[in-house]
């Protein structure tokens, strides 16, 4: 699902790295949003609605709408559409509203 050739744009990508999504090892590029890496890997369901548990993907992709909240490295409610991907990141589908361990 990556764009291979584009008539106008050239995409500057970071290093190819590995990260975990719900225990599965996936590949992406360092610095790109976690949601972009997931989408490129075919993962489109990012969260679930609180009351009816309906699947949710991203909506705005600019960190405004909270539709893409996930648990990243143990921290809940991370807007993965603007969260830069890093080597070894642990990305998990969040259950419920998420709890911050403090």
């Amino acid at each position, binding site marked *: 699902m990556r764009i291979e050739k584009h008539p106008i*744009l050239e995409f500057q990508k970071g290093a190819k790295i590995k990260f975990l999504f719900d225990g599965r090892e996936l590949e992406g590029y360092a610095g790109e949003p976690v949601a972009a890496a997931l*989408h490129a890997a075919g993962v489109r369901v990012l969260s679930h609605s609180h009351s009816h548990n309906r699947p949710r993907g991203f909506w705005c992709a600019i960190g405004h709408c909270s539709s893409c909240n996930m648990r990243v490295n143990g921290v809940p409610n991370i807007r993965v559409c603007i969260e830069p991907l890093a080597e070894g990141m642990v990305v998990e589908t969040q259950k419920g509203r998420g709890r911050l361990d403090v």
Partner: protein
Amino acid sequence: MYKTEILVVGGGPAGLAAALAAAEQGAEVTLADRNSDLGGQLVKQTHMFFGSKGQYASERGISIAKILKEKAAATGKIRILTGATVTGYYEDKKVTIEAGDKFFPVEPQRVIFATGAQENTLIFPGCDLPGIYGAGAVQTLMNLHGVKPGNRVAMVGAGNIGVIVSYQLLQAGVEVAAIIEAAPRIGGYYVHAAKVRRLGVPILTSHTVIKAHGNHCLEKITIAELDEKRQVMAGSERDLEVDVLCVSVGLSPLAELLFQAGCRMGYVPELGGFVPFRDDCLETSVAGIYVAGDAAGIGEASAAMVQGRIAGLAAAASLGYGKDTFLEKVTEAGRELTGLHGGPTGEKIRTGLAKLTLLAKEAV
């Protein structure tokens, strides 16, 4: 305490132009943007702009963002805070900023709100399925990050964004099944619409989406034709197999901070929703608070940049900077803005602005 003469909230086309104009007049400016980079939505606009040379016509949005950023850096008078979200405006005229793990108050003498807009949603059964994305989101995913949103897309909305993003989808190698528009005519610029039509994309006017189907993600949509009263015509329903539905049904100004600051607001559908009352220099009903760009009413980036310039010049002049050149510069900018809002494409904005003026008069 962090003090600044002029705080510009939002580093898109309006905010960048505002900061630049104010700094060039000699004011000391802080430009805060919640994103990791400046440029706002310009950074994903691969199409060329209209207008005149002064408004960067014939340049692609991505290039305009670069030019503005370089100019802003060159002034040496703009402190740029990226990854910095302005979270509130308080009664003591201070604003708070959250940046990374820091949270701090700022005391500005003037504030220019150039907060931009958010995409509107469309409500129908199944509208929350993954695969149904805002048109701007799809643009971000493809033009900024090089990822295709899916294999076959349907676009809702034949306004400028709808037709431009459809063309950009084709450029990225994604099939566009159809553009669906509830109105009986295409709202976007003819040149863009003609381009996608030539490439074989049907633009279905007087049509709407009535249902989205899919188990976990979007698999199919049902569309239908609308009569003159915009009611679904019985028997006109048909299915389109698509894995992405791109929603481009307008934008709403991000007005929260303006409300919080106590600016008097009016609801004007032609301008996208609640917008602040303001004078010709874009100063709101609260002295020292200005507005520019989509936050002032949904429009185009070219007009947003001119509005930013006007607000920046005015805020700087009110602090005593560039008073000798102010009148000449602001008159020229005003002329440009009138030009951009002229013609049939500016009709909606002109109507909206007239309504806003009327509302403001009634409110006095």
